[in-house]
């Protein structure tokens, strides 16, 4: 029983952190930018989804009454709102942190600082506008528990895990097969060769930033099934995403997935050990990552594929 809870918790956390980490890793490897505003995207999309859900809830309830249809419709609305706003926020990051400085000196450091400033501004702006009170998103997967094979899991956990698997699968499939994905990978590997193949860095970077933004938005909706939306709710996922991206070796998507799974389980296990508890979770994570980084200075990435230097 205890183990099953740990397992599900671990997978749930891994799913959400994985979404964040892959966004960060992807953006780094394709456009060479560390997106510190990923947490801001997370929080802002959470709020956007909350606003939309709040506005439409009465309407949907009035139209369809209480039932499965309403729940699924609300789920659709919330997810679309979150992902859509995340993509919009990604476009904003593109406009501020990529477009003006991408061919100027010190781009990596400067874009990091710009995204950090965006993060700071967004968190404070949300705090100022919405206040520190937490908001509750509609339960898109309904409430309840499912038991099978002796495992018991809440709907939201199963939903988060499945949704993440689907989203990640779709994203990776898109990257592998579509033309845009080919262009993104070409740009990752050789920017000059890419422009000579008629691939515009500026127009390829936009879908990447929007995609990673949408991933952060989805992560926000999924995590808010378990916890609430608050102005600072993006900070922890950002730190987790960043640490996992680094643990996996920046720029390596398989590394990020592996890192997310490891960290997710580590957190769930540490949280479940009675004398350690939730307060030591971050402590244990960082300790683990420090040890890994000391042994493997470039993270796990090199083990799995060739990452951008």
């Amino acid at each position, binding site marked *: 029983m205890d183990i099953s809870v740990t397992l599900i918790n671990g997978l749930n956390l891994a799913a959400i952190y994985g979404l964040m980490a892959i966004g960060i890793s992807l953006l780094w490897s394709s456009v060479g930018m560390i997106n510190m505003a990923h947490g801001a995207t997370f929080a802002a999309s959470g709020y956007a989804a909350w606003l939309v859900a709040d506005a439409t809830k009465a309407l949907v309830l009035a139209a369809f009454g209480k039932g499965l249809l309403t729940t699924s419709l609300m789920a659709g609305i919330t997810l679309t709102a979150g992902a859509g706003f995340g993509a919009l926020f990604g476009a904003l990051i593109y406009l501020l942190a990529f477009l003006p400085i991408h061919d100027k000196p010190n781009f990596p450091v400067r874009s990091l600082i710009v995204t950090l400033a965006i993060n700071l501004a967004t968190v404070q702006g949300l705090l100022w506008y919405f206040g520190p009170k937490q908001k509750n998103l509609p339960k898109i997967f309904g409430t309840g528990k499912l038991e099978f094979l002796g495992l018991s899991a809440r709907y939201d956990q199963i939903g988060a895990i499945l949704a993440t698997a689907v989203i990640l699968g779709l994203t990776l499939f898109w990257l592998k097969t579509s*033309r845009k994905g080919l262009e993104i*990978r070409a740009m990752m590997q*050789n920017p*000059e060769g890419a422009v*000579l*193949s008629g691939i515009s860095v500026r127009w390829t970077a936009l879908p990447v930033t929007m995609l990673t933004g949408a991933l952060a938005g989805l992560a926000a909706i999924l995590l808010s099934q378990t916890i609430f939306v608050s102005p600072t709710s993006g900070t922890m996922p950002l730190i987790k995403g960043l640490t996992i991206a680094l643990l996996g070796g920046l720029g390596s998507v398989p590394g990020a997935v592996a890192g997310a799974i490891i960290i997710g389980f580590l957190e769930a296990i540490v949280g479940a050990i009675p004398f350690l508890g939730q307060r030591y979770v971050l402590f244990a994570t960082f300790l683990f990552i420090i040890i890994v980084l000391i042994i493997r200075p470039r993270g796990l990435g090199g083990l799995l594929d060739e990452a951008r230097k």
Partner: protein
Amino acid sequence: MARSGADVLKITGLTAGYGPLRVLHEIDFKVAEGERVGLVGLNGHGKTTLFRAISSLVGWQSGSILLNGAEVGGARSSGPGRRTPAIVRAGLAMTPQGDAIFPGLTVAQHLDCGAYTPKAWKDRKARRDMVFDIFPPLRKLEHALVGRLSGGERRMVSVGRALMVEARLYLIDEPSLGLAPKISASVIEALFALPQDGRALVIAEQNVALLSGRVDRMVGMHAGRIRGDVGHVSLH
């Protein structure tokens, strides 16, 4: 249609360089439709810079570059590479010096990168076949990673990428660089076997022997200037 007669490329007064360094000096250069031009000259005399200036990849440049009669040059002092995709789409296919290619893609994907126009993308399979006909060794390497290929095969991929669309002007920079003589001869051979219907080809090469007798015109480059094509007073 090209407005300036049959000139695919017409460069007038092109000056270009990197930072305070000036590499090209007032270059005037023309390439007509269907022409094969050899650009010869020693290392460091501006052949590569000329190609990079045509594709807007140098630090700064000024002067007019007409590609198919449309201006793609002009004065520019920042953002190298920003206009390149547009120039490429205007009908330029350039193979950069060395192996400026994508090591993590397979040969097929790499060739697909070259097919950037919607039409070329649609029938990319046929075009790949065409490239494989020109470079037969690539056919059985279709799904191999480019980074794992030998130097000659990589050069073939690099040139093949440029052949994936119907460009008007092909700039091939040092196709023989760093290759064994036999392989470089076969690469050049394949280049000259291409049909010349309306496209123009400029090959930069240090090894004059590889080109002599096969190009319509040989142009020398010396110290950032074109020599052998124009001159005020002929000496002998």
